[in-house]
């Protein structure tokens, strides 16, 4: 599998909180940290505003991986958005896992505004793991 996927460039979608992970992404850029260019970042006001509908929309449209980046526990600017996000992800991943629908393609990660390094490393890991998984079966499926 891994061999077949050597040339596979995954399409990755990131829902990044404005107050932390989005800033970390900028920081990684301005400090010239290297990470794969596969991620398409979407800025959200808080990880708590990422309804599963957006994640599912991306997954079903053929994104190979979706990552939600939020503030560290205790640091959410809206107090509890990230805790609620974690619950939603727990529900979403439970459902995807139960139905055999590519639960491993959805990641939740806490990356603060100061953690440019962590952002770059996470994007590297994420890209690598999704490459290992191969292209999403949703990519070519027109009848979803």
């Amino acid at each position, binding site marked *: 599998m891994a061999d077949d996927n050597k040339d596979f460039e995954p399409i990755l979608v990131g829902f990044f909180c404005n107050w932390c992970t989005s800033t970390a992404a900028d920081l990684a850029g301005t400090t010239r940290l290297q990470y794969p260019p596969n991620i398409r970042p979407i800025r959200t006001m808080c990880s708590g505003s990422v309804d*599963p*509908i957006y994640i*599912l*929309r991306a997954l*079903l*449209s*053929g994104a190979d991986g979706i*990552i939600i980046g939020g503030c560290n*526990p*205790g640091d959410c600017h809206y107090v*509890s958005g990230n*805790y*609620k996000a*974690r*619950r*939603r*992800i*727990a*529900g*979403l*991943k*439970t*459902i995807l*896992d*139960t*139905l*055999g*629908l*590519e639960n491993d393609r959805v*990641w*939740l*990660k*806490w990356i603060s505004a100061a953690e440019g390094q962590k952002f770059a490393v*996470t994007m590297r890991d*994420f890209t690598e793991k999704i490459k290992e998984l191969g292209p999403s*079966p*949703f*990519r*070519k*499926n*027109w*009848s*979803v």
Partner: protein
Amino acid sequence: MPRNAMLEVKGGDITGTVRGFLEKLLEKKAVDALLVPVEVPSKKNVVQTMVTDIAQLADVSPLAPVMPVNTAKIISSVTKVAASTKKVGVILRSCELRALVEMVKLKQADMNNIVTIGIDCFGTYSVTDYAVFSQEHDTPAGEYLKKAASGTDTLLRPACKICQYPYPLTADMTIGLFGLPIEKEILVHSGTKEGDQVFEALGLDGEADPAKRDEALSALKSERQKLKEEFLAQVQQEAGGLDNMLSVLSACVACHNCRIACPICYCRECLLDSPTFVEWEAEKYLDWASRKGALRLPADSLLFHLVRMNHMGASCVACGLCEDACPNSIAVYKLFCLAGSRVQETFEYTPGRSADDELPLTAFKEEEFKGFEK
């Protein structure tokens, strides 16, 4: 203190006994009105009916095995604009009562002046099966109760066969049938202050021993637990994986009837019917199509089901009405029962168990679900 009383069943007429009890509720002004299942003149259906006049209870039929609409939805629409100022007694099956508890938590129903009368349920038929069955028998409810007692009812809906809570969990009053010699007597139980007030108004109380019912319920419970796990394992096998999932949904026409029938789905405007999802210029559809080379239309049927599971799965009471509402007999209940059960396990949440259990998606703890983080 829970209070119990037995009602004597005369001439084996169980429906008549319940009718007598309901008449007394109005007569003694324990309640001002009743929301109860009444047989329609054609006898083909039994529908929830708001009754204020005792005479209109003549065709009341709370034991008839049919549930056209989940009563939680009815209470929600009746109390949405303003709560009731008069006392209304409502007969509910367990899945209706559990849905009601969820709706109250979701702020979709107001329980002020609502007195819940739960009823033990041996299971229900689909509306179409009941319409046929009711024409074949003079007393459909009586006929059904005989079959229920012998455990040989093939008309029961799949949801009822594996129902984990066929007895009311939180009712003010319960009409108990399980484990009792129902040809001779049935149980009335009060579980709350409101129930106690009714007991007093009716001068009920007396000798009653619900132990037999408790025994029957725990036996039924372990049997049902096993049946449900077998059922879910089979659904997982049949529907698991993208190809199987799409095969199960192949006949979906995106009518969203399943959502309309669901007592838990309450949004006035579902996001999936909103302009964000359905109002686009042709250009956009062509663009979507070009991504995969083709696009099934109407679009987003899998998305619709998955989103619904995410939004309401934790509160799914497994009533099965979604599947009954589907014009193309898609196994919607199977999918939702499976997904809902697993989500409820993740959150250790039992929908409808208690008004005090917090909804899983509004509550949180600082230290939890780390396994879902990366």
